[in-house]
């Protein structure tokens, strides 16, 4: 028996466009992913220098969270009880390849700790937790394709067990130049029902 929960807002980053609740907030065609995400960072007044130390996956995730949380007026100066449940297909493979490359040549063997630390998909959740003081639950799932059902079930289970006040759910995927981010915030009060249909509807928006 589940109470009703609601989707409070959602953010998408795909095809070189960032949208919030279906409306475009930034777009810049004809750029490769890294160039695009840095341009978006500057344009959206993100003001978080640690951004530049992050790998591609974390840059993507933190920018999407920035857009969504700014809209939600999340205060970075205090604890926020928001669990984070992310998922993707490729884990951290983009950064894994970089680390692998650094150990391929025995004559030029200088693996980088700053790259290695990002060879885990949940680090992007860690980055968001640091920025927004989320001393909360987090889990990173891997699926072959975006799975609204799993995110729905898992977010519901956290809320109904009283583990958290809100859940930030998402699909944050990066593999070479293929990238996609879709985050949405699930809350106890609202107007748009937290349902599989709505999750998918907004994913496709």
């Amino acid at each position: 028996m589940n109470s009703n929960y609601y989707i409070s807002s959602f953010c998408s980053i795909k095809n070189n466009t960032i949208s919030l609740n279906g409306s475009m907030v930034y777009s810049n065609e004809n750029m490769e992913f890294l160039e695009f995400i840095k341009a978006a960072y500057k344009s959206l007044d993100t003001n978080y220098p640690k951004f530049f130390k992050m790998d591609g996956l974390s840059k993507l995730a933190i920018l999407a969270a920035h857009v969504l949380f700014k809209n939600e007026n999340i205060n970075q100066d205090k604890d926020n009880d928001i669990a984070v449940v992310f998922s993707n297909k490729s884990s951290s493979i983009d950064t894994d390849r970089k680390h692998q490359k650094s150990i391929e040549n025995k004559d030029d063997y200088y693996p980088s700790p700053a790259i290695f630390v990002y060879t885990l998909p949940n680090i992007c959740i860690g980055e968001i937790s640091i920025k927004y003081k989320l001393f909360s639950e987090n889990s990173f799932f891997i699926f072959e394709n975006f799975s609204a059902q799993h995110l729905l079930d898992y977010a519901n289970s956290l809320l109904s067990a009283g583990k958290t006040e809100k859940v930030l759910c998402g699909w944050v995927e990066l593999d070479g130049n293929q990238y996609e981010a879709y985050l949405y915030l699930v809350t106890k009060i609202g107007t748009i029902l937290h349902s599989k249909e709505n999750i998918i509807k907004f994913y496709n928006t």
Partner: protein
Amino acid sequence: MTEVYLSYNNIVSSLGFDSETVVSNIHNEISGLQLIDDKEMFFKSFCSSIINQKELNNSFTSIAVEGNFTRLEMMMITSLNSVIQDTKIPLTKNVGLIISTTKGNIDILDKNSKFLEERAYLGSLGKVIKDFFKFKNDAIVVSNACVSGVLAVTIAKRYITQGIYDNVFVVSGDIVTEFILSGFNSFQALSSEPCKPYSKNRTGINIGEVAASVLVTKNDTNLAKEAVAILGDGSCNDANHISGPSRTGEGLVRSVKLAQKEANISFDNIDYISAHGTGTPFNDEMEAIAINRLGLQNVPINSLKGYFGHTLGASGLLETIVGMHSLYNNTLYSSLGFEEIGVSQPINVITKTITKKLNIFLKTASGFGGSNMAVIFKKINMTSK
């Protein structure tokens, strides 16, 4: 609230291919760690627990006609097969499959690998395991750094409590690779000797490899003799740094408090703590601080990293299973590798195998990304040894 149990279990490791054998070796303080000098694997010698390939092949051929499986898949299939055989549960749509790993088949990224890169994707690992056993549901793959193993157990509990599954098989695994060794070496975190959790002269971690499996179920009939109930769990991020633990142990403290609140027990009821204890200066110090903040400094505590090294995505589940056997056997196992105490706050490290009546234990884990987990388990079989 539905009661959820951990039941039949298996460990595939350098200390044996079944839980009883592994626990027996731990009882006798036998370590699976060895000094490995293999320039193909890593440029300098390192201390690790590596599963014997011949033994793994032998074990695997009794389960499957040798197909095209990676080393990790062989480990995980061998382990999970044992549990599925023991439980005799038909794999219907009410049965889930959760896989936990940090890097999966990462050795496939090496240019000498005979497998195609697409096999390195964790979804492929999930599919291979699912198809091998013919599960009706897709595998749920969890990759959340070194808390993955014990997080997978709580995820299974959540799915069962939600009524999505009645039973969930959880299998965890990670392998020793140059990818991992080189990474931790760049962090100056690798010890060239067997690790010394909580000790004054600790110099870092050893990497080990293991596959571990367990059945998580709501059925209290036909439980394994060492079954435990999950009383409560808590998971709180440090919100501090992506690799270093919080100096005040904030996330771990909050996690344990949440677990205790859900378990509805007093801290006095905790008989034993199976901690993370990797052997790095910072992790072990953070844990000691957290344990003291919680008032748990007198509770017998160990780290099992001295037997297997740090088995990453499998460590949480491996160590939970040993904890189950610890409770059933009413035995506290030595925190192997421990020498003179080297943390700033007192903790009650178990220094040799001793018998003691045990009912409830706390498992903790921490990982990169600021993750922390705490789970409280209670023995079911009160007529245990």
